[in-house]
């Protein structure tokens, strides 16, 4: 906020150049894979943060939309040969529509019971895709036919191409968040998150605003689902509706800074880097280590810095600023 307009643009330009050049400079496929994970989960976090962060509707069921996006585009591609680029948008629309009845049910509850209801809806969807085999391959799932280099079908030979796709998604997500944050909608969302009754009293149609932001959040989350399936060439209910997706969407936002533009990105960088380091030290043989560390980080943030890393950085920044005159 303190930086002047010009400085902000300069930082953005530098950031853009670095992000665009990164896959050209670092060519190790392991590293690019980590970058892609960071961008993907940042994007999912950004989608979650719109509703969970700004409006404090703490969902732990965003895997529902990740899975619906993944399945919509995959069914369209495998059964009808339709490009996942189209399927991706279709998946987003399906997720948006699904968020209406799901939201209708879950928004009847507040606080922790809203959270529980969202978990249940994602689990129900997973169970449906597991049980009804004729519908979408059941528990075995399916592989995506590998077409080699087919950009029109969202398939690339170079990992860096996937990097640019997901980078594009993240930019879109951040841009939407920025636009909402700076508009009346952003004020309304925060107001609902702070006190729904008080918001209603000043004319905020809280149920409608919550419904709308849930639709946007679901749409974006579904795009991530399509991308992920295309990236790993495989889909099954356990991956598409994985509870871990729901968890990580919320975690990266909370750790980075809930209800802030860059919070989910910063949270993901921290969590995914930690996870990658742990894996390279211990190998992937130790099950549970990643989430053990995540949960410890989450507890530390909640107990000592509920505003997340962004809040921490702002505090430090202001403290050093305040000291400066004393030194002079």
């Amino acid at each position, binding site marked *: 906020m303190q930086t002047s307009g010009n400085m902000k643009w300069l930082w953005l330009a530098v950031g853009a150049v670095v992000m665009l050049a990164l896959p050209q400079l670092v060519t190790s496929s392991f590293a690019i894979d980590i970058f892609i994970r960071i961008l993907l989960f940042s994007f999912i976090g950004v989608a979650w943060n719109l509703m969970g962060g700004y409006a404090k509707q703490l969902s732990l069921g965003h895997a529902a939309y990740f899975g619906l996006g993944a399945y919509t585009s995959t069914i369209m591609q495998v059964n009808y040969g339709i490009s996942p680029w189209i399927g991706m948008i279709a998946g987003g629309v399906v997720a948006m529509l699904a968020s209406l009845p799901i939201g209708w049910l879950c928004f009847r509850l507040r606080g922790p019971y809203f959270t529980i209801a969202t978990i249940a809806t994602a689990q129900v969807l997973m169970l449906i895709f597991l049980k009804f085999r004729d519908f979408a391959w059941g528990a075995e799932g399916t592989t995506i036919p590998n077409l080699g280099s087919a950009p029109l079908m969202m398939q690339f030979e170079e990992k860096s191409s996937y990097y640019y796709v997901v980078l594009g998604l993240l930019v879109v997500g951040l841009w939407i968040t920025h636009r909402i944050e700076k508009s009346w909608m952003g004020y*309304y969302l*925060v107001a609902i998150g702070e006190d729904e009754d008080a918001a209603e009293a000043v004319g905020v149609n809280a149920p409608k605003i919550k419904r709308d932001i849930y639709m946007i959040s679901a749409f974006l989350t579904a795009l991530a689902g399509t991308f992920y399936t295309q990236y790993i060439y495989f889909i099954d209910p356990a991956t598409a509706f994985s509870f871990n997706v729901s968890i990580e969407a919320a975690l990266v936002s909370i750790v980075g800074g809930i209800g802030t533009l860059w919070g989910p990105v910063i949270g993901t960088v921290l969590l995914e880097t930690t996870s990658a380091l742990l894996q390279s030290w211990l190998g992937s043989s130790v099950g549970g280590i990643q989430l053990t560390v995540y949960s410890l980080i989450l507890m530390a943030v909640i107990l000592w810095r509920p505003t997340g890393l962004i809040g921490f950085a702002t505090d430090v920044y202001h403290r050093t600023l305040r000291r400066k005159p004393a030194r002079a």
Partner: protein
Amino acid sequence: MAEALVIKGLSKRFGGLRAVQDVSFTVQENETVALIGPNGAGKTTSFHLITGFHRPDSGSVLAFGHEVVGLKPHDVCALGMARTFQVAKPFGAMTVLANVMTGAFLRDRHIAAAQKKAREAIEFVGLGAKEQTPAKDLTTIDQRRLEMARALATQPRILLLDEVMAGLNPAEIDQAVALVKKLSASGLTIVIVEHVMRAIMAVARHIVVLDHGQKIAEGAPKEIVENPEVIRAYLGSYVHPPAPGDAHA
């Protein structure tokens, strides 16, 4: 004078408790009416019923001729009736300005316009110096001021104030009384729930007295303080015969 708010036969039960029973009163345009009564008389519940937070079991609430029973609180607000809460409900994480802008967006969704309207409301209630303060850091009286500014920013014609003077010291009460008078002078119709008799006598032209959910009296302040039933039900509950030990106090 036109009728701003016409309340007829308002009733609400919670389980076995008759919180509000067949309450009727009328508020003229640009009049300040006080709703008084002992604790649990149904004042705050009446506010909830009038502003759409609770749905009455029966009765009607006409605001400038529009029936508001059945409307959601945000619709009631859009019709031009704004309220404050007994326990102030600021959006704690937001600055004062952002709080009030949230109210202003009801009439104009452009940032610049909302900011302008919000600043006017903030100036009006005397919070101008604290525009950038996070609402959670405000004192009690400033939180009340903020609630009023936020309500004002929605550009209401009727303002319902729920115990805006509770918890204030005498000097602050004087400031609050002045503010309510200023609001009235700006043309607003005001319904105020209050316990501080001094403040009520200063601002209200008409008083409605509730007890156990029922209206037991209404009239001009002078009549009300002399009404024996009111003294018994309401004032009486505050006036205790002096105990022998109190003499030196």
